Protein backbone atom coordinates (compact mmCIF):
# COMPACT_ATOMS: atom_id res chain seq x y z
CA UNK A 1 0.00 0.00 0.00
CA UNK A 2 0.98 3.59 -0.63
CA UNK A 3 -0.34 6.99 0.40
CA UNK A 4 -1.90 9.42 -2.06
CA UNK A 5 -1.99 13.17 -1.46
CA UNK A 6 -5.39 14.53 -2.43
CA UNK A 7 -5.65 18.22 -3.33
CA UNK A 8 -9.28 19.44 -3.09
CA UNK A 9 -8.37 22.80 -4.65
CA UNK A 10 -7.44 21.13 -7.96
CA UNK A 11 -10.55 19.70 -9.65
CA UNK A 12 -10.11 16.62 -11.81
CA UNK A 13 -13.03 14.89 -13.55
CA UNK A 14 -15.77 15.05 -10.88
CA UNK A 15 -13.32 14.98 -8.01
CA UNK A 16 -9.86 16.06 -6.98
CA UNK A 17 -6.28 15.74 -8.12
CA UNK A 18 -3.97 13.03 -6.85
CA UNK A 19 -1.01 15.36 -6.47
CA UNK A 20 1.60 12.98 -5.10
CA UNK A 21 2.07 9.36 -4.09
CA UNK A 22 4.53 8.21 -1.42
CA UNK A 23 5.37 5.05 0.43
CA UNK A 24 3.56 4.46 3.70
CA UNK A 25 5.32 6.21 6.55
CA UNK A 26 6.66 8.89 4.21
CA UNK A 27 3.73 11.28 4.43
CA UNK A 28 4.24 14.85 5.62
CA UNK A 29 2.02 17.70 6.75
CA UNK A 30 0.37 19.56 3.85
CA UNK A 31 -2.09 22.34 4.62
CA UNK A 32 -5.32 22.19 2.64
CA UNK A 33 -4.75 18.60 1.45
CA UNK A 34 -5.16 15.14 2.92
CA UNK A 35 -3.60 11.71 2.55
CA UNK A 36 -5.42 8.44 1.90
CA UNK A 37 -4.12 4.93 1.49
CA UNK A 38 -4.01 3.68 -2.08
CA UNK A 39 -2.92 0.74 -4.17
CA UNK A 40 0.70 0.36 -5.18
CA UNK A 41 -0.03 1.06 -8.84
CA UNK A 42 -1.51 4.51 -8.27
CA UNK A 43 0.52 7.27 -9.95
CA UNK A 44 0.10 11.00 -9.39
CA UNK A 45 -1.84 12.78 -12.16
CA UNK A 46 -2.74 9.50 -13.81
CA UNK A 47 -5.47 8.93 -11.25
CA UNK A 48 -8.04 11.16 -9.59
CA UNK A 49 -9.96 10.98 -6.33
CA UNK A 50 -13.74 10.68 -6.31
CA UNK A 51 -15.12 12.11 -3.04
CA UNK A 52 -18.53 10.57 -3.66
CA UNK A 53 -17.38 6.99 -3.21
CA UNK A 54 -13.93 7.85 -1.77
CA UNK A 55 -12.16 5.86 -4.47
CA UNK A 56 -9.11 6.65 -6.56
CA UNK A 57 -9.85 6.16 -10.25
CA UNK A 58 -7.80 6.00 -13.41
CA UNK A 59 -8.18 8.75 -15.99
CA UNK A 60 -9.28 7.84 -19.47
CA UNK A 61 -6.40 6.06 -21.14
CA UNK A 62 -4.29 8.34 -23.31
CA UNK A 63 -3.22 7.15 -26.74
CA UNK A 64 0.52 7.36 -26.97
CA UNK A 65 2.74 6.05 -29.71
CA UNK A 66 5.84 4.14 -28.76
CA UNK A 67 8.57 6.64 -27.94
CA UNK A 68 11.46 6.94 -30.34
CA UNK A 69 14.79 5.57 -29.25
Amino acid at each position, binding site marked *: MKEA*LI*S*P*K*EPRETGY*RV*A*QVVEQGQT*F*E*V*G*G*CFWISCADDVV*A*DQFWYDPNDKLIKLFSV*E*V*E*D*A*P*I*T
Partner: protein
Amino acid sequence: MTQAFNLSQFANKVNSSGQADLTTAVTGTLPVANGGTNQTTYTNGQLLIGNTTGNTLTKATLTAGSNISITNGAGAITIASTAAGGFSNMQVFTNPGTFTTPSTTTQIKVTVVGGGGGSSSPGGPGSGSPGAGGAGGAAIYVGPVSASTPYAVTVGTANNTSSFGALASATGGSNGSARSGTTGGAGGAGGTGTAGTLQVQGSYGSNGGSGPGSTPVVPGAGGAGGASIFGGGGVGQIPGTLSATPGGNYGGGGGSGNTLPGATSTGGPGVVIVEY
Protein backbone atom coordinates in the same frame (compact mmCIF):
# COMPACT_ATOMS: atom_id res chain seq x y z
CA MET B 1 -12.75 96.24 59.21
CA THR B 2 -9.36 94.74 59.38
CA GLN B 3 -8.18 91.80 61.39
CA ALA B 4 -5.30 92.35 63.74
CA PHE B 5 -2.07 90.71 62.62
CA ASN B 6 -1.15 88.05 65.10
CA LEU B 7 2.59 88.31 65.21
CA SER B 8 2.99 85.49 67.66
CA GLN B 9 1.15 83.07 65.39
CA PHE B 10 3.25 84.02 62.36
CA ALA B 11 6.43 83.74 64.37
CA ASN B 12 5.60 80.10 64.98
CA LYS B 13 5.74 79.47 61.18
CA VAL B 14 9.15 81.05 60.64
CA ASN B 15 12.36 79.30 61.37
CA SER B 16 15.43 80.78 63.01
CA SER B 17 16.68 82.08 59.63
CA GLY B 18 13.49 84.06 59.11
CA GLN B 19 12.19 81.72 56.38
CA ALA B 20 8.50 80.80 56.22
CA ASP B 21 7.53 77.12 56.24
CA LEU B 22 5.59 76.61 52.98
CA THR B 23 3.82 73.56 54.34
CA THR B 24 2.28 75.31 57.31
CA ALA B 25 2.67 79.04 56.73
CA VAL B 26 0.97 79.23 53.32
CA THR B 27 -2.60 78.27 52.44
CA GLY B 28 -4.48 78.04 49.12
CA THR B 29 -3.14 77.08 45.67
CA LEU B 30 -0.30 79.05 44.11
CA PRO B 31 -1.51 80.42 40.78
CA VAL B 32 0.48 80.30 37.51
CA ALA B 33 0.97 84.06 37.58
CA ASN B 34 2.82 83.69 40.86
CA GLY B 35 5.03 80.88 39.64
CA GLY B 36 2.75 78.02 40.68
CA THR B 37 0.81 75.47 38.65
CA ASN B 38 -2.66 76.23 39.92
CA GLN B 39 -3.00 72.44 40.33
CA THR B 40 -3.30 70.38 43.46
CA THR B 41 -3.95 66.80 42.30
CA TYR B 42 -2.65 64.55 39.50
CA THR B 43 -3.25 61.10 38.13
CA ASN B 44 -0.60 58.77 36.66
CA GLY B 45 0.74 59.95 33.33
CA GLN B 46 -0.65 63.48 33.46
CA LEU B 47 1.56 66.22 32.09
CA LEU B 48 1.26 69.99 32.45
CA ILE B 49 0.86 71.66 29.08
CA GLY B 50 1.38 75.36 28.60
CA ASN B 51 -1.38 77.35 26.98
CA THR B 52 -0.80 80.92 25.79
CA THR B 53 -4.54 81.55 25.94
CA GLY B 54 -5.02 82.74 29.48
CA ASN B 55 -1.38 81.95 30.23
CA THR B 56 -2.36 78.73 31.98
CA LEU B 57 -1.09 75.24 32.60
CA THR B 58 -3.45 72.41 31.72
CA LYS B 59 -3.29 68.78 32.77
CA ALA B 60 -3.27 66.34 29.84
CA THR B 61 -2.25 62.77 28.97
CA LEU B 62 -0.55 61.52 25.81
CA THR B 63 -2.79 60.14 23.05
CA ALA B 64 -1.65 56.96 21.31
CA GLY B 65 -1.43 57.17 17.50
CA SER B 66 -1.60 54.24 15.10
CA ASN B 67 0.49 51.23 16.08
CA ILE B 68 1.59 52.95 19.31
CA SER B 69 0.75 51.99 22.87
CA ILE B 70 1.05 54.27 25.90
CA THR B 71 1.22 53.03 29.46
CA ASN B 72 0.81 55.61 32.22
CA GLY B 73 2.60 54.65 35.41
CA ALA B 74 3.37 56.32 38.70
CA GLY B 75 5.92 58.89 37.63
CA ALA B 76 6.63 57.21 34.32
CA ILE B 77 5.17 56.95 30.80
CA THR B 78 6.04 54.00 28.54
CA ILE B 79 5.64 54.42 24.78
CA ALA B 80 5.94 51.32 22.56
CA SER B 81 5.27 50.26 18.99
CA THR B 82 2.55 47.67 18.48
CA ALA B 83 3.22 47.18 14.76
CA ALA B 84 4.80 43.99 13.46
CA GLY B 85 8.42 44.67 12.78
CA GLY B 86 10.05 44.11 9.42
CA PHE B 87 11.82 40.85 8.70
CA SER B 88 15.59 40.99 8.92
CA ASN B 89 16.55 37.33 8.46
CA MET B 90 15.99 34.86 5.65
CA GLN B 91 16.60 31.13 5.35
CA VAL B 92 16.23 29.32 2.03
CA PHE B 93 15.46 25.60 1.97
CA THR B 94 16.27 23.73 -1.23
CA ASN B 95 16.18 20.43 0.64
CA PRO B 96 13.84 19.14 3.35
CA GLY B 97 14.63 20.14 6.90
CA THR B 98 13.32 21.76 10.04
CA PHE B 99 12.97 25.43 10.84
CA THR B 100 12.90 26.26 14.54
CA THR B 101 11.62 29.73 15.33
CA PRO B 102 13.93 31.82 17.52
CA SER B 103 12.76 32.57 21.05
CA THR B 104 11.88 36.15 20.10
CA THR B 105 10.10 35.40 16.81
CA THR B 106 6.31 35.61 16.79
CA GLN B 107 5.72 36.78 13.20
CA ILE B 108 6.97 35.11 10.05
CA LYS B 109 6.74 35.15 6.26
CA VAL B 110 7.08 31.91 4.34
CA THR B 111 7.11 31.48 0.55
CA VAL B 112 6.55 27.94 -0.69
CA VAL B 113 6.85 26.77 -4.31
CA GLY B 114 6.13 23.23 -5.53
CA GLY B 115 8.26 21.42 -8.08
CA GLY B 116 7.59 21.96 -11.77
CA GLY B 117 6.19 19.33 -14.11
CA GLY B 118 8.13 17.83 -16.99
CA SER B 119 7.42 16.84 -20.54
CA SER B 120 6.07 13.51 -21.67
CA SER B 121 7.95 11.08 -23.87
CA PRO B 122 8.74 12.37 -27.34
CA GLY B 123 6.82 11.05 -30.32
CA GLY B 124 8.81 10.55 -33.44
CA PRO B 125 9.41 11.85 -36.94
CA GLY B 126 6.32 13.51 -38.32
CA SER B 127 4.33 13.20 -35.13
CA GLY B 128 3.12 15.85 -32.77
CA SER B 129 5.10 16.94 -29.75
CA PRO B 130 4.05 16.20 -26.22
CA GLY B 131 2.91 19.05 -24.01
CA ALA B 132 5.32 20.88 -21.76
CA GLY B 133 5.25 20.69 -17.98
CA GLY B 134 3.16 22.95 -15.79
CA ALA B 135 4.82 25.07 -13.12
CA GLY B 136 4.68 24.40 -9.42
CA GLY B 137 2.08 26.27 -7.43
CA ALA B 138 3.01 28.77 -4.76
CA ALA B 139 1.79 29.91 -1.37
CA ILE B 140 2.83 32.81 0.85
CA TYR B 141 2.07 32.87 4.56
CA VAL B 142 2.45 36.02 6.68
CA GLY B 143 1.29 35.79 10.25
CA PRO B 144 1.92 34.58 13.76
CA VAL B 145 4.03 31.59 14.77
CA SER B 146 4.93 30.11 18.10
CA ALA B 147 8.37 31.06 19.36
CA SER B 148 10.97 28.33 19.90
CA THR B 149 8.91 25.84 17.90
CA PRO B 150 10.13 23.46 15.16
CA TYR B 151 8.29 23.43 11.82
CA ALA B 152 8.79 20.62 9.29
CA VAL B 153 9.94 21.85 5.88
CA THR B 154 9.38 19.74 2.77
CA VAL B 155 10.82 20.80 -0.58
CA GLY B 156 9.29 19.13 -3.60
CA THR B 157 11.42 17.73 -6.36
CA ALA B 158 9.94 17.82 -9.88
CA ASN B 159 6.15 17.30 -9.77
CA ASN B 160 6.08 17.19 -5.99
CA THR B 161 4.63 19.20 -3.12
CA SER B 162 6.44 21.70 -0.89
CA SER B 163 5.20 22.66 2.54
CA PHE B 164 6.01 24.52 5.74
CA GLY B 165 4.10 22.62 8.38
CA ALA B 166 0.40 23.26 7.89
CA LEU B 167 0.90 27.00 7.43
CA ALA B 168 1.91 27.10 3.75
CA SER B 169 1.78 24.39 1.09
CA ALA B 170 1.86 24.20 -2.70
CA THR B 171 1.53 21.24 -5.03
CA GLY B 172 3.82 20.48 -7.93
CA GLY B 173 3.08 20.98 -11.60
CA SER B 174 1.78 18.17 -13.80
CA ASN B 175 3.66 16.64 -16.69
CA GLY B 176 2.54 17.56 -20.17
CA SER B 177 0.27 15.10 -21.92
CA ALA B 178 1.49 12.76 -24.61
CA ARG B 179 0.74 13.61 -28.24
CA SER B 180 -1.78 11.57 -30.16
CA GLY B 181 -0.49 10.76 -33.61
CA THR B 182 0.27 14.03 -35.34
CA THR B 183 -1.65 16.04 -32.75
CA GLY B 184 0.45 17.73 -30.10
CA GLY B 185 -0.18 16.96 -26.46
CA ALA B 186 -1.70 19.37 -24.00
CA GLY B 187 0.51 21.26 -21.63
CA GLY B 188 0.53 20.12 -18.04
CA ALA B 189 -1.51 21.98 -15.45
CA GLY B 190 0.29 24.10 -12.92
CA GLY B 191 0.21 23.14 -9.28
CA THR B 192 -1.47 25.43 -6.79
CA GLY B 193 -1.09 26.87 -3.35
CA THR B 194 -3.27 24.90 -0.93
CA ALA B 195 -2.58 26.71 2.35
CA GLY B 196 -1.27 30.15 3.19
CA THR B 197 -2.27 33.80 3.18
CA LEU B 198 -1.91 33.96 -0.61
CA GLN B 199 -2.28 30.92 -2.85
CA VAL B 200 -1.09 31.06 -6.46
CA GLN B 201 -1.49 28.63 -9.32
CA GLY B 202 1.51 27.88 -11.51
CA SER B 203 1.19 28.48 -15.24
CA TYR B 204 0.22 25.73 -17.63
CA GLY B 205 2.88 24.35 -19.90
CA SER B 206 2.42 25.11 -23.57
CA ASN B 207 0.85 22.56 -25.84
CA GLY B 208 3.13 20.59 -28.10
CA GLY B 209 3.08 21.47 -31.75
CA SER B 210 1.36 19.21 -34.24
CA GLY B 211 3.43 17.23 -36.71
CA PRO B 212 3.00 17.17 -40.49
CA GLY B 213 2.55 13.42 -40.59
CA SER B 214 3.70 12.77 -44.11
CA THR B 215 6.91 14.73 -43.71
CA PRO B 216 8.90 12.57 -41.35
CA VAL B 217 11.89 14.83 -40.92
CA VAL B 218 9.91 17.79 -39.54
CA PRO B 219 8.15 16.87 -36.31
CA GLY B 220 6.08 19.32 -34.35
CA ALA B 221 7.95 21.86 -32.28
CA GLY B 222 8.07 21.46 -28.54
CA GLY B 223 6.18 23.53 -26.00
CA ALA B 224 7.54 25.91 -23.39
CA GLY B 225 7.28 24.99 -19.75
CA GLY B 226 5.01 26.92 -17.44
CA ALA B 227 6.32 29.71 -15.22
CA SER B 228 6.21 29.62 -11.43
CA ILE B 229 6.08 32.82 -9.38
CA PHE B 230 9.82 32.93 -10.00
CA GLY B 231 9.51 32.24 -13.74
CA GLY B 232 11.84 29.54 -14.93
CA GLY B 233 9.77 27.78 -17.58
CA GLY B 234 11.96 25.67 -19.86
CA VAL B 235 12.07 26.37 -23.59
CA GLY B 236 10.56 24.02 -26.10
CA GLN B 237 12.67 22.08 -28.56
CA ILE B 238 13.23 23.23 -32.10
CA PRO B 239 14.37 20.01 -33.77
CA GLY B 240 17.93 20.21 -34.98
CA THR B 241 18.36 23.71 -33.56
CA LEU B 242 17.47 23.96 -29.90
CA SER B 243 17.03 21.35 -27.21
CA ALA B 244 14.24 21.49 -24.69
CA THR B 245 15.48 22.79 -21.36
CA PRO B 246 14.40 21.77 -17.88
CA GLY B 247 12.50 24.07 -15.62
CA GLY B 248 14.53 26.37 -13.43
CA ASN B 249 14.12 29.25 -10.99
CA TYR B 250 12.33 27.05 -8.47
CA GLY B 251 9.24 25.38 -9.79
CA GLY B 252 9.39 26.17 -13.49
CA GLY B 253 7.92 23.62 -15.86
CA GLY B 254 10.13 21.70 -18.25
CA GLY B 255 9.98 22.34 -21.98
CA SER B 256 9.03 19.56 -24.37
CA GLY B 257 10.25 18.32 -27.70
CA ASN B 258 9.97 15.53 -30.21
CA THR B 259 13.35 14.47 -31.49
CA LEU B 260 15.98 12.77 -29.39
CA PRO B 261 18.35 13.93 -28.12
CA GLY B 262 17.13 17.11 -26.52
CA ALA B 263 13.45 16.30 -26.53
CA THR B 264 12.65 15.68 -22.89
CA SER B 265 13.13 17.70 -19.78
CA THR B 266 12.09 17.74 -16.19
CA GLY B 267 10.51 20.40 -14.03
CA GLY B 268 12.56 22.55 -11.70
CA PRO B 269 12.62 21.69 -8.00
CA GLY B 270 10.61 23.71 -5.52
CA VAL B 271 11.80 25.91 -2.69
CA VAL B 272 10.79 27.14 0.76
CA ILE B 273 11.91 30.63 1.81
CA VAL B 274 11.50 31.69 5.44
CA GLU B 275 11.76 35.35 6.48
CA TYR B 276 11.64 36.30 10.14
